[in-house]
């Protein structure tokens, strides 16, 4: 399959990540789930989709090292190549990864203003102007609402597509009206799109792997207008690749 065909068939089109001319280029998105359900994998697939469309992406990783994050991309890329039988995979990979910068921070040393400073460095010196940012490992239990508001302003100012991941816990019952669980229930208004990952016990669709568990991508909120909530997306529990049911 050639890359253009893949981009059209990518299940992520359901999220209207600027496909078919309906450009949604100033969005704050959130993927929330309990630990181990595949949040990072979804962020990497969203980033990879942008990279394959020639967009530049900054991947911010808190508490993970550079090599591990790079390895994530390689795994997802290889799985994509295998699943869609992509042509010219090696050359495409080199070309694609050139448009990505990974910034890693340790948990204690990170704050949003610092990240904003780093992004400004990249943009002002004309080193790298990202079209998107994925933000993995941000601790929402310690988040200041002011920081997130600052981030949203930045998103709107420089035209970024930003996706965060957040961990929720089984023993914390708090949630917002639309069902956004804690610790993000009070900052729900700052996000344009919110996806909740949930593990469901039922047989996977025919031809899919899995042991009776399916991970559903539940679109809790979308104000961009382009997301097709009627389409159901799942994660393949074996590869953590997004699939359309």
């Amino acid at each position: 399959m050639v890359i253009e065909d893949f981009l059209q068939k990518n299940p992520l089109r359901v999220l209207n990540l600027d496909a078919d001319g309906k450009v949604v280029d100033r969005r704050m998105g959130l993927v929330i789930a309990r630990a181990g359900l595949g949040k990072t994998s979804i962020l990497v697939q969203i980033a990879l989709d942008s990279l394959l469309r020639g967009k530049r992406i900054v991947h911010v990783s808190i508490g993970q090292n550079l090599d591990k994050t790079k390895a994530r991309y390689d795994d997802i890329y290889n799985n994509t190549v295998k699943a869609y039988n992509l042509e010219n995979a090696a050359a495409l990979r080199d070309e694609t990864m050139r448009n990505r910068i990974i910034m890693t921070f340790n948990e204690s040393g990170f704050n949003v203003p610092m990240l904003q400073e780093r992004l400004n460095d990249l943009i002002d010196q004309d080193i790298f102007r990202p079209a998107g940012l994925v933000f993995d490992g941000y601790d929402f239990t310690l988040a200041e609402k002011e920081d997130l508001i600052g981030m949203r302003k930045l998103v709107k100012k420089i035209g970024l597509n930003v996706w965060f991941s957040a961990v929720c816990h089984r023993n914390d019952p708090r949630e917002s009206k639309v069902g956004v669980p804690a610790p993000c229930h009070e900052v729900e208004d700052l996000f344009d799109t919110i996806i909740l990952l949930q593990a469901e016990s039922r047989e996977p669709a025919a031809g899919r792997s899995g042991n009776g568990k399916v991970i559903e991508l539940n679109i809790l909120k979308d104000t961009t207008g382009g997301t097709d909530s009627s389409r159901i997306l799942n994660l393949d529990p074996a590869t953590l690749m997004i699939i359309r049911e």
Partner: protein
Amino acid sequence: MVRNIGISAHIDSGKTTLTERILYYTKRIHAMHEVRGKDGVGATMDSMELEKERGITIQSAATYCTWKEHDINIIDTPGHVDFTIEVERALRVLDSAILILCSVGGVQSQTITVNRQMTRYGVPRIAFVNKCDRTGANPYRVIDQIRNKLGLNAVLLQIPIGLEENLKGVVDLITMKALYFDGHMGEVIREEDIPDHLREEADARREELIDAATMFSDELTEAVLEGTPTPDMIRDAVRTGTISLGLVPALVGSAYKNKGIQPLLNALIDYLAAPGDIENKALNLNNNEEEITLSSNAGDPLVSLAFKIEDGRYGQLTYVRVYSGTLRKGDTIINSRTGRKCKVGRLVHMHSDEMKEILEARAGDIVALFGIDCSSGDTFTSLGLSISMTSMHVPVPVISLAVVPVDNKAQVNLSKALRRFTREDPTFRSHIDSETNETIISGMGELHLEVYIERMKREYDAKIEVGAPQVAYRETITRRAEFNYIHKKQTGGSGQFGRVAGFIEPLEDVEYEFVDKIVGGAIPREFIPSCDKGFKKCLKKGPIAGFPMTGVRIVINDGSSHSVDSSDMAFQNAAAGAYKEGVGKAGPALLEPIMKVAVEGPSEFQGGIMGSLNQRRGLIVGTLEQDDYTVVESEVPLSNMFGYSTVLRSLTQGKAEFTMEFAAYRQVPSGLADDVIKEAKKRRK
């Protein structure tokens, strides 16, 4: 009872100084000299004049000593990344290592490289936080960095008594005693109670140590629950953890001030692996290169690896690690690569550039042989065995320069030097450019070549003029193309005839592959190697600017011959013609070496560092930010890296530094390719 250990670390962290202390306390030498000492003698392990002068270790030197009835073979390895092959070779044959860190600088980029190499070879290690006497020393921060930056489970076995100029000694957290190093050279150890002001800290750190150690011993866990852990139980658990790569015990001290060295020697014996503790693998050549585990038993047949060759004043000296069996003087052994038998003549234990004759070396020993003709990386076994140790990873040279001898005498001396250096160091290569007739040397970096040039001048009296460093460009093809070429020549006497047809196509990660798909004898069998030879000759020069070709597969699938006029030469010429026809249509492209460059410095300079890399056509791969310190990882074309150290220094007030290693060959952007081609043509004229 043997320990084969390496000493690896960042440049200038005190490896050679530490080795000097180890040799002194084990009574191997009777006087200590400093690396840049006022007595001008230089450290024992830096035997090369250039090493003494520059204060850096260039060649890894081997030595041995005895401590508490254990033989310790030590390889002191270079710290600079350009000499990384020396580090790799040492790690391949060692069972464990001491990772030295500076208590001020902590984990630096070279430490990360060395640590990665140790991980690649599964080498258990202990950390020694050196230079605790220096201003700004903070061993606790260094331990945190080992944990966070290197991802190692580091645990302190000692804490320092005082720091900087007040460094007095160390507290042993296992025996809970304070150790002071008295006497002129710190040779007298005085054991006392822990000073009151350190009691609380020592208790807390001991608890941390025991917590970490219990992960590796049920016996210790039970004893801790009952409140009766003994020092031996803790040591055993730490040893198990270290050998299984789950734990890195850390010691502190100052080699220069003679503090903490004897406890480090004890730790080598207590925690590092003996040859029998490590599983060594080899390949059985009789069984499809099946991986087998070697026994480490001195009574079994011999398996040994030549890991380093040195052409010295006594002829070729081959450093050998014996993995199993016993190597005896007078034995006949076999080189499994060449199948050639040879007799073991002189067998010696090396001590820097001095040696001691021995009669035998048993499994686990590192010794040197004389008069054996072999290359670095060859396996020697007893007769009848067909086993090869796994091959070592050898990086490709990326930088080259021309050396021109000023007269005939210099020419002779230069050839002698080159013959020796290229045999000793697989990352250093030389060839003669057939167009310019210049001798070209290639290596891993500017310093690497600089050192060899100095050695040519000093050790061989080769008076040479040196050209500017050149990037080792390559050429390749980007698409498949067919060829069908007839070579016909009839100029009196017997003629030449050969037709070669097939296709040429790009190939990843391999320089050249020749595939014969001729059926029905279209080209007679005896002329197939002639075709291969003809193609190989052409690959030495690419069509764009005459740089060597890489990443090419040539498939021949048709051809024809003449019963009288076809010959080896005719098919070589036909292949050359076919190649020219094919390569022109295959989209030839110019490639340049891309280096992985890691710049490390205070976070306040991150923007500037990234800007400087960007200006050099660098691609920022990522950043790692921790405690006000940032590492920027990038990929930069080598051609843009000349002189970068000066730029970086002035940009960051000397607070940042960088390391660089080869990453890959990539296509030169078309705008720049024209300049490279013009320059290459100009040089040839």
